[in-house]
């Protein structure tokens, strides 16, 4: 099965802090995604990318930036973290077109 690695696995920061979540896949997948998961909302798409240098806006992008530096690496940036961004964040990837989506293990972020 395809491997998607997220880091860190847990992160605590304060309101106004700067946070970067990292995601790496070595499956030669074209598409990478960042989701957040909150009770009562399921999985919501923040940003996604079709390839290195490409960025697409998801459904809940406010307060988040993302950057796809290489085919393998996709970063999610919270430049002024707020308590409303406390959540479980998942990265996912897939080859392209109509192919299976694979998830990382998740990053639990707490903004105090």
């Amino acid at each position, binding site marked *: *099965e395809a491997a998607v690695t997220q880091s860190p696995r847990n992160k605590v920061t304060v309101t106004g802090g700067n946070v970067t979540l990292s995601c790496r896949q070595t499956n030669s997948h074209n598409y990478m*995604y960042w989701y957040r998961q909150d009770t009562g909302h399921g*999985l919501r798409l923040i940003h996604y990318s079709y390839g290195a240098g490409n960025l697409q806006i*998801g459904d809940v992008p406010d307060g988040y930036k993302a950057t796809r530096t290489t085919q393998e690496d996709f970063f999610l940036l919270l430049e002024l973290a707020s308590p409303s961004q406390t959540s479980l964040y998942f990265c996912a990837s897939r080859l392209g077109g109509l192919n299976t*989506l694979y*998830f990382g*293990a998740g990053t*639990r972020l707490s903004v105090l």
Partner: protein
Amino acid sequence: GDQVKQSPSALSLQEGTNSALRCNFSIATTTVQWFLQNPRGSLMNLFYLVPGTKENGRLKSTFNSKESYSTLHIRDAQLEDSGTYFCAAVNTGNYKYVFGAGTRLKVIA
């Protein structure tokens, strides 16, 4: 309204019994994926479906694109089947995955 609606939202099953979970879609889709989120939070792939049926052990899933629904059947439920089951449909317009809200399953001895 919900583009991918899952039912039931929660379910409790006696060990050894059978059940079916359902997803109804109101978006154009040609593929469906089912995931299980275990109690530790990890999301595992169960099935990736084009219209038709797939089976894997005690699990079987069907996707009917004409009637816009998918089902996941669990046979002989075991304690380790507990978790939250998500279905996701690929929006054929933008290739985004749209997720349902999940079905929380608890299998009891």
